[in-house]
């Protein structure tokens, strides 16, 4: 997102809008990686190889859907808080903790056999193509890493740092969704 400002410039010029795209600085999602989330990277990678029964697939897809929906709701609530000049930090901490927790559960959400062939889902079959498995696992790991890093910043009072980590997390969500999720119409 950040690297595409060249097209925005004429549009912003047209608007005369100031306060255009802000660049988050000091991006280093690696900084706050806990040993725990490194372990999760391994878990995420291994789960893709697992095969599940039809009954388990339905259960996992349901849990995945509910989990993603909760993460989405948390993310929307966070967006409101960070758009506001006075974010409610208690709300931010709760939402960040919930997303981090669900991100760890996400390691078990994508076993083989839980794609569109098993039922209604936004997950593209590309996830389980051999050439994409490593990339998907890396994107899932990036989600877990950025969710943990964002959650860690919320324990302190630096809202600027929170926003930076929040933007990193959003970037991780988008990178995976752009490639591996279908456009859904509810």
């Amino acid at each position, binding site marked *: 997102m950040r690297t595409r400002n060249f097209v925005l410039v004429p549009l912003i010029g047209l608007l005369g809008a100031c306060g255009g795209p802000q660049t988050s600085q000091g991006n280093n999602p690696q900084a706050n990686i806990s040993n725990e989330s490194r372990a999760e990277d391994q878990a995420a990678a291994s789960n893709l190889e697992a095969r599940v029964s039809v009954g388990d697939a339905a259960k996992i897809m349901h849990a995945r859907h509910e989990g993603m929906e909760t993460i989405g709701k948390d993310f929307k609530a966070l967006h409101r808080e960070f758009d506001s000049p006075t974010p409610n930090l208690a709300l931010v901490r709760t939402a960040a903790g919930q997303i981090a927790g669900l991100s760890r559960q996400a390691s078990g959400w994508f076993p083989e056999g839980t794609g569109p062939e098993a039922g209604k889902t936004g997950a593209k079959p590309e996830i389980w193509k051999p050439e994409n498995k490593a990339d998907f696992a890396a994107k899932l790991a990036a989600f877990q890493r950025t969710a943990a890093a964002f959650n860690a910043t919320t324990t302190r009072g630096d809202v600027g740092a929170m926003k930076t980590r929040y933007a990193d997390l959003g970037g991780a969500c988008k990178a995976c969704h752009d490639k591996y999720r279908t456009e859904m119409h*509810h």
Partner: protein
Amino acid sequence: MSRQISHGDAPLSAGRAAAVWDLPVRLVHWTLAGLIAFSWWSVHNHHTDWHIWSGCAILTLLIFRLLWGFLGSSTARFSSFVRGPAAVRDYLHGRWNGIGHTPLGALSVIALFGAVAVQVGLGLVSEDEDGLFTGPLSGLVSIDASDTARGIHEFWFENVIVPLIVLHVAAIIFYRLRGKHLTKPMITGRAIVDPATKPMRPAKWWVALICLAVSIGVVRWVVAGAPPFGHWTPPT
């Protein structure tokens, strides 16, 4: 519908070329067409941030055109083309002579601008499915309201905007088949007109600049989240 076409650069008409559309009207028309196409493309190609800026640019055009409808050249003014059903009936019976929007074409103009205004309004308070992107005024409504607005925003494009664009283009093709060019005057600003018709009264160029400055000012305020009522952080 009557076979008679009352004005325009019909090849057999004994008219002369005269100004019918001023530069601001033409610029708004083509920029709006381009931005609508760009808005559609960007949101379907993972560029929701560009989509939002495109919508803000469209808002600037809408506000400008609204002001120009009161202060612009005679053919740009609402008072010259917003008419009642009697005028539409007269036009359909071939009893209309003039330059600018025909009484029937005016209905299309009003419908298109109205539909785009609704679309921009919905977009301003929307947010995307993941909460990654918010419209500048989404903070003024609840999360549920933003999600509902997004749903209507999608519905409105597919079921109102697209059909109106199809109708608009179909009407242009229809008139073209009957010998009346509508596209070229919208590019050059000039058309062959009946010498008996009242010529376009052009507006001052600096009035257009004032209208543009005002519309940019309003959109800057909207893009800030309409303080003090709300605040908005643009997408990074």
